[in-house]
Every structure is written in structure tokens, then in C-alpha cells.
């Protein structure tokens, strides 16, 4: 059993943080890696990125958005409750090196995934500009942490309730126009956002890394459920990724594959709420 030692609601109860006792994983995890969690016997295996780890304390932190049955169930777990199974660290760690100027773009809970990567890029000596966004002010997460992890933080909201009024792509365009010597972009968030960011950076010729979130089962390259098309080749996101070159990813295929279980997911969530 993997005990929750801290729980925090980040945004109106739809985004929740869990700090979980998992000493072996905490000792081993690197930025960009994820875990698969199962709440109880009947539970589904759900992949979530580690937003932070504390090897001394032996804990890992996940931040998730409630979108369906399993994440809703996760949100009901209190401090002292436990996940039945936590598997990890999974996925290839982010390749971190000193490049010069880099820009990190995060949307929604993608900011949680972006945070450890941003921190590592800064520690490696890069000059980091960060752009984070959400639909509105209340859904924005980790602003202070992201500020600390970067040299320059820009915030935007779709509805203008905070920071720049508009999408992260608008700000990304501005940043890239200002900085012709940008070496790398990292964009993590909902699929449409990563797709749009990749289109912008392609125009500017800036290499771009995205973190994909296809539906997974085992997370070890055994089922092939997480397959994504990258540069015309099939890759397994759980072992070859989850990070890939955004200019090569077939985002449309990913979007369609993410909808594979829409009906069952609805059924499951409806059942659960009754």
C-alpha cells in the first residue's frame, strides 16, 4: 500500500495534489518520468507524471485533473488513505542539457508535468522563459513554483481573468519573435495546445519537445495500447516516450485514439456518481 501523506486541492477541487509514500520510486525517478496508479482492487491503471519527488522523505507528488471515474475516485482519497498499487518510475527521463535559451510552455495540469523539467533545465544552466496558461485564474496551478523554476514567467488565461488575455500560443509567438536565438521549446498540456504550440515553433524553426498522454495499460511496452505515430513510425509512448519531437507527432491520430472509450468512460462515471 502507498500512503497519501499530503493532499491539497489546487484549483476549485478539479485539480488535486497527492504526496505519496513510495521510497523506492522517489529514490529513482527523474524529470519527465511517470507512475501508474491503481486505487483499489477493482481500479483502473492510471498513468500520472511525477510533479515532484522527495528522495529523503521517500515521497512522490502527483497532480491530476478530475476528468472521469478514476481521477474522481482519486480525488476522494484523503490523507492517510492509500493507493493499492503504484508502479514506476516509468518512461524515458527527459534529456536535459545546457543549450542556452529555452522556452517552456504549460497548459492546464500540463504545468505539473512541466515543472520538474523546467527546474532541471534551469539547473543545467539554461536561460529559461516560461509561459503557463489555464482557462481562467482559478484553474491556474503552480504559479509560484514555476516562477522560481524559471528566469522569466509569463502567465495567460483564456478568459483574461489573470495575466495576458489569450492563449499560450500568442505569448509563445511573442517570445520567439523577441528571442531569435531560442534553442528549444518544451510544450506540455492538452493535445490541441501541444499541437498549436508545435505549429508555432515550426514556423520559427525551433526544436520542440512535447509530452504525450495516450491511453496506457501496462506502461512497460507490453500492450501497444499507447502507440503514437511519430515521423511516420509507430512508437510506444510508455517506453519510447512520453516525450517526442512535436514537429513529428501525428496529433490528430492521438486525439482520435484518446476517444476510444468515450462511451464506456461515460457509463463508468455515471455509475460511479450514483
Amino acid at each position, binding site marked *: 500500500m502507498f500512503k497519501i501523506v499530503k493532499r491539497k486541492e489546487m484549483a476549485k477541487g478539479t485539480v488535486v495534489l497527492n504526496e505519496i509514500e513510495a521510497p523506492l520510486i522517489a529514490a529513482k525517478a527523474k524529470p519527465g518520468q511517470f507512475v501508474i496508479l491503481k486505487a483499489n482492487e477493482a481500479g483502473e491503471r492510471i498513468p500520472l507524471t511525477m510533479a515532484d519527488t522527495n528522495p529523503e522523505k521517500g515521497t512522490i507528488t502527483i497532480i491530476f485533473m478530475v476528468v472521469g471515474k478514476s481521477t474522481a475516485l482519486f480525488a476522494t482519497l484523503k490523507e492517510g488513505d492509500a493507493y*493499492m498499487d503504484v*508502479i514506476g518510475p516509468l518512461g524515458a527521463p527527459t534529456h536535459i542539457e545546457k543549450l542556452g535559451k529555452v522556452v517552456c510552455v504549460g497548459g492546464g495540469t500540463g504545468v505539473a508535468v512541466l515543472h520538474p523539467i523546467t527546474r532541471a533545465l534551469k539547473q543545467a544552466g539554461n536561460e529559461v522563459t516560461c509561459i503557463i496558461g489555464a482557462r481562467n485564474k482559478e484553474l491556474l496551478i503552480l504559479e509560484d513554483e514555476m516562477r522560481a523554476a524559471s528566469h522569466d514567467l509569463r502567465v495567460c488565461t483564456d478568459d483574461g481573468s489573470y495575466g495576458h488575455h489569450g492563449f499560450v500560443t500568442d505569448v509563445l509567438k511573442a517570445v520567439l519573435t523577441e528571442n531569435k536565438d531560442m534553442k528549444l521549446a518544451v510544450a506540455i498540456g492538452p493535445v490541441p495546445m501541444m499541437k498549436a504550440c508545435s505549429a508555432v515553433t515550426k514556423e520559427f524553426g525551433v526544436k520542440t519537445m512535447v509530452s504525450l498522454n495516450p491511453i496506457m495499460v501496462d506502461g512497460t511496452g*507490453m*500492450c501497444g495500447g499507447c502507440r503514437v505515430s511519430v515521423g511516420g513510425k509507430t512508437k510506444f509512448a510508455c517506453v519510447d516516450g512520453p516525450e517526442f519531437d512535436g514537429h513529428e507527432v501525428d496529433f490528430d491520430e492521438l486525439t482520435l485514439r484518446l*476517444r476510444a472509450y468515450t462511451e*464506456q468512460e461515460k457509463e463508468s462515471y455515471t455509475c460511479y456518481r450514483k
Partner: protein
Amino acid sequence: MAEKEKSEKIPRQKMPEQEPAVRARNFNEVPLGLSPEAAIMEAGRCLQCKKPACVEGCPVGVDIPAFINRIREGDFPGAIQKIWERNSLPAVCGRVCPQEMQCEGKCIVGKKDAPVAIGNLERFAADYERANRKAVKPSKGASTGKKVAVVGSGPSGLTVAGDLILKGHDVTIFEAFHRPGGVLVYGIPEFRLPKEIVFSEVDGLDAMGARVELNTVVGRSVTIEELFAQGYDAIYLGVGAGLPVFMGIPGENFAGVFSANEYLTRTNLMKAYRFPEYDTPVIKGKNVVTVGGGNVAMDAARTALRLGAENSYIVYRRSKNELPARAAEVHHAEEEGVNFRLLTNPTRFFGDDKGRVIGMEALKMELGEPDASGRRSPVAVKGSEFRIDCDLVIIAIGAGANPLLTKSTEGLALNKRGYIVADQATGKTSRKAVWAGGDIVTGSATVILAMGAGRVAANSMHDYLTLGW
């Protein structure tokens, strides 16, 4: 001689089974098991050969006449004890071993009549013991103080663990999934091998003192180097051949096209057949195409029926004679109404505007000259394209070596297909103190061969731990 004539008159006892029309819609086990009376009758058919051919056919050399004789005498605990001497997973083997090609294939009675139902008798002895708990478990050797790590809890890893525990070593099994058993729990469906049986075999190991560390992906959660650093004296790699193979044809990434691994894992291990009581969903197709002709394909096609398919097709590019699946499984599938589209090879999948699979294009095939495998190779008939409408496709054309662990381990020799190179007689790999066996060495094979490899390695590991490399 008189004895022999008498025994030949008893017909092979039929295994009672659920009716095809009923069982095709439920996940309960298909064969119901022999009654004690029927088991004793069947045991009476055995000639107690002096040079038993059946034993030669058994990859782990179970003393078949001896255990059958005990059943004949009504000494059921004695029978299971006899089997345990050579086989630690009899309830599993009695259900899934290809007996028709192994022990039963060699049985002398089978020369004139139907062979002795060795598999059914093995299953009977194991099930009787599980229900009654009368037999004395094999006793454990004195502790040697040596620590062994077994990676993977499939049949091969479980065998190594069982053998080494008996020899007094301190054994820890590391398993990537949240449940032990390997293919026995995630692949082979409940209606062929109830999961409770696998768990009860694992519990037996547990009771003897083996530790099972679940949720541990060796190569990611912990590496081989780290295991040695933690004080393990020897390591066995029994990670199976868990890499799904796809065909590489257009449309394979449409939603609704699954690997057999994913389809069966969702259904069996994650219990999607009890969705929404269990949270993991699986697509329930009306018209389901399974591509392939092995046991895996039969399992997938029969699972699809149980999940409510109106039509469950097997699409296979050769003819019925070449189907690699066990004859019994093909027969079960046919009885249940699986529709065999033989001499048919898929060329592409069609999808709708939502990216879901809605059909498959295939070519008719003819059999040409025998190929390297000795089977006549399929040749496409020009212009024979046709379409099968379907809303779910399961690709079951084989499995490869998963590189996750092997890529993260230095100095481990692999063959060109990525399987671990291990000495047949010992299971030793190119790395000192590391052994390997089962599907990760041989490629997809059988439960009993994986167990046999485990047995060989356990003996070699014991030698190493007590005598040196």
C-alpha cells in the same frame, strides 16, 4: 496380458464440459473436471508400462505411471505428491499443456485406442488437493544464506523460485504487474484457466517463504546492477516474450485495433468483462476480427464472443491444417461458433471519421511450396481483395522480445531477434551469476517448456550457489 485386454475395454472418460451455446456467453471454466469415479476409471486404462513412453514426452519428466497408479488406488493425496516431485504447477499444466503432442501423444494405449487422459488426471489430482488439502508439501532444505532474485512471475520464474526455496535459498520474485502469474493471469482467459488457481499456486510459494515484490519493473524500478549491489547472489530472468507484434499495414492505429496482449490484459487481468463493476473498459465489438491462428488468437476470438460479439472471425493466412493452436482449442472455438476465415490475409483497415475501425480489406490466399518452417507458404491470389465489416480487430500474430530489461542490462548477450542467449543445459547467460529461461530465451513457447527451463536453471543456480560458477 489379461490385465491389458481388460483395460482396453474401458473407453476414455469424457471430460464433462459446459454446453457450447451456454459457455460462449460466460467466463466460467469450460471443462468441469472429472469426478473421482471417472478419474479412477480413467486411471485404470493405464498399462503401467515398464518403459513409459509418456514420461519421455513430458518436458519435466513427471513419473506419470506412478501418479496414475495412485489415482487408480484412490490415493489422491499420494498422486499429487508424486506429481509435485517434478511439477510445481499441476493445476495449470493439467489445463493448458499441449498433452496431445507431449505425454498423451506418446502413450502406448493411444496406438490403438484413445490415449490415457493424462492431462485430465493431472488436473483432477491438483484440483482434489486444492479442495481437500490432504497432501504433505515437499519439505524445505536447511537455509544456505544465499539470496536469489527471480525477475518475472510467469511459469518459468515460479518454477525457479519453487525449486530454489526447497533447496534452502532465500528467494525474492520481482514482478512488473500488480498480480503474479505472467501470461497465466494476463493472457490465458478465465474460462480456460481460472485465476484463483494461479494465485493459489503462488500462495503456496509464499507460504514456503518466497517474497513476491509486485509493481516492480526491473530495468526501471531497479536494475540488475542494483540487485547485485543489494546483495543478491544470483539472478534469474524469466520476463517472457511480452512485445506485441503488429502487421505494419495501413490503418493499424485506428481506435478499435488492439494487440492480443492489450485485449486480453484488459479483459483478464483488469477484469474488463465485469465492467463497470471493475473500472477498466474494453471495446465490445459486434463484428470482431482476430488475426492469427495460434492459442492466443483462439483465446481472443472466444473472449470476444463472451463479451457479446455477434460474429467472431478468425482470419488466418494458411489452411486449417497449419493452424498452430492446439486442436482442442480450435475445436472448442468451432463449437462455440467462432467463424474461421482461412486462407485470408489482411491488407488494410478502414476507419470512420472518428478514427474508429469499421472494416478490413483482405486477400484470398493459396498454399504454395513449403517454406523454412516446413509449412506450405501462403501465396496471394491476385485481384481477390474483399472486405469484412468489423468494429474490433485483435492482432494475434505473435510476440517478440521486450527490450525494456535487456536494454538496461550490460553484458547480456542477445540474439539478432533480441532474445537472451542462454545455455540450454544450464540456463547460464553471458553474464556471471545471471540465468535466463522461458519465452525470453526461446521465443513464444509453452507453459511446460518455460517450467522445464526454470528447472534446469534452478539446478545450475544451486550448483553455483553451493559450489561456484
